[in-house]
């Protein structure tokens, strides 16, 4: 079992997390977790349920305040910044339990993401915003569902909507939180190729999932999290054959 003792600093990658720790009362969800994501790569963060993956994302993107640790993005310290500020820096995310706004249809959902953070503005209502929203929907494969209400979308569609919304902020980096959850294997492949194309367009990706199969073929590098701390990291092939990783998954699917 290898553990990280070296610490990271701001210049080690596009997104650098050093010594992240998050405690909820008596429960330590994330314990001294450090990793870095290089520009243009696809990093996978895997681990069994409850390992602290989502909590990590939440701390990085400003949904939770880390108990301790530092987060750098593009070399700047963004630790503890509120979510909207992090997004405006170019770091967007999707949600595991994605909540589209139920009171509006697909394209209107995306239009919200295009709305500026200004009180007095008509921009959100213009045709330009609408066109851009349609573009984004088509990008993620929702071109045929523009007027559909989220409640009527299949699960895969909702995940795509989440990606569209995240893309609306024109991010440099995208954190994908369990994007493959509940999908059939061909849907997984479709989504994976969408992510590949995003990377080809210059967006750095970090993906967490506990469904390892789809992730390992997509990722360049893998970090394994268990009980809140880093178990190991390496290339997909290394991780696939690592006995510690198999053990950590405790009888889960074979990788």
């Amino acid at each position, binding site marked *: 079992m290898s553990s990280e003792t070296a610490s990271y600093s701001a210049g080690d990658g596009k997104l650098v997390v050093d010594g992240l720790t998050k405690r909820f009362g008596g429960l330590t969800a994330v314990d001294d977790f450090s990793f870095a994501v290089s520009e243009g790569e696809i990093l996978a963060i895997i681990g069994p349920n409850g390992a602290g993956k989502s909590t990590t994302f939440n701390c990085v993107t400003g949904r939770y305040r880390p108990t301790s640790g530092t987060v750098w993005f593009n070399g700047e310290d963004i630790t503890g910044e509120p979510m909207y500020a992090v997004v405006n820096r170019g770091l967007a995310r999707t*949600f595991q339990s994605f909540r589209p706004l*139920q009171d509006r249809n697909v394209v209107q959902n995306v*239009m*919200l*993401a295009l*709305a500026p953070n200004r009180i007095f503005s008509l*921009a959100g209502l*213009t*045709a330009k915003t609408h066109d851009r929203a349609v573009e984004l929907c088509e990008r993620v494969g929702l071109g045929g569902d523009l007027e559909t209400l989220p409640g009527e979308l299949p699960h895969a569609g909702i995940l795509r909507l989440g990606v569209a919304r995240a893309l609306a902020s024109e991010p440099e980096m995208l954190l994908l939180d369990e994007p493959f959850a509940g999908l059939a294997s061909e849907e997984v492949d479709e989504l994976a190729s969408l992510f590949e194309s995003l990377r080809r367009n210059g967006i750095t990706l970090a993906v967490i999932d506990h469904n390892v199969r789809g992730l390992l073929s997509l990722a360049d590098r893998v970090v394994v999290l268990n009980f809140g701390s880093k178990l190991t990291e390496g290339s997909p092939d290394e991780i696939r054959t690592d006995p510690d990783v198999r053990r950590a998954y405790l009888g889960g699917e074979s990788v």
Partner: protein
Amino acid sequence: MSTRQSLVDRTRELTRDSIAPRHLVGIVALVVLFAAPFELDTITQLTVISAIYFAIFAMSWDTVSGYTGQFSFGHSFLFAVGGYTAGLLNLGFGVTPVVSILVAILVTMIAGFVFGAPALRLSGPYFAVVTFLLPLVLLQIFILKKDIFGGTLGLSNPQSLVSSSEFAQTVFLNYYLAAIAFVVVLAVLLVVTRSNAGRVFTAIREDEVAVAACGINPTKFKLFAFVLSAAVAGTGGALYVHSPVGQPQPSQLLAVAVSINVLLASLLGGSGTITGAAAGGLFYYLLNEQIRQVGWVIPVLGVDVSQFSLVIFSLLVLALVFFLPSGILPWVMRQGRRALATARGGDVAADGGEPPLVRTYRKYVRELRELRGDDDE
């Protein structure tokens, strides 16, 4: 596309919408409102003036609570700040009504900012708690500093903003003042809520985290809604005390009943629409007055119905929460649309179909069946 072009597009959109029946109904209602004083006697005019101010208060509540979903259980706090500031300036310092009203609006907006900024950082229920407590604390201060604020009895009558030598004429003038204020407030709020900000407000109500994930600062917008609400509240409160129908008194501006009535009226009319609060406010107040005047006595309890009106409305809202969650006005509009559609022989819209009552009934039957099958909830 330039901003000018998009503004033209937007106007075209709006005018296209204006042909919708519900707008026609609204315009007719406003015409009736403005024409009414010629048919009504002075006493009734006074009642309608009060109803108008109540509706303004309701719109103030709806702006923040209906739109952003941050339920305020103590909006009377803002009404009181507006009313008392204007009243104190006028009575204590001889400031003319026009100035006292403007200052009162400003002061209420400042109060909205000062109390709203920290309070809005709290999540929904906590926010409701704080707003519930604020008027109670203010009332205690008014009682403790009775010499300045007049305690539970409040202050006496400030000058009227518009008046004439003859009482009937004064009332007449004040009616139009109130009606104009009503329309101005309505217009401003409609513009704001139908703009970009309005979409963000409703998004905040749906899911604040989602809004933050879109790179929009939810707190900023919530605060905007709150300060806007305070501006309306200050306008209403200040004009109210400078009219023949209102004084700076706790029973009129600060009581828990005021906060609750405003809340009930907006919910009944349909929260989150502004028009629902406007219509709901008017009807709620007028209905309340009718009940008071009719003076029925409930058989078994031997009690005057008017004392029970708050209970009746509470029960109505309770029923509404389950059967017509979006309020009466939207339901009426849906019914109207369906009636029109069938009259035109067209297809009924997707959200039509069964009336809400039947849908809810089916839902409960389903749940009961699940219960008997010993399923979780």
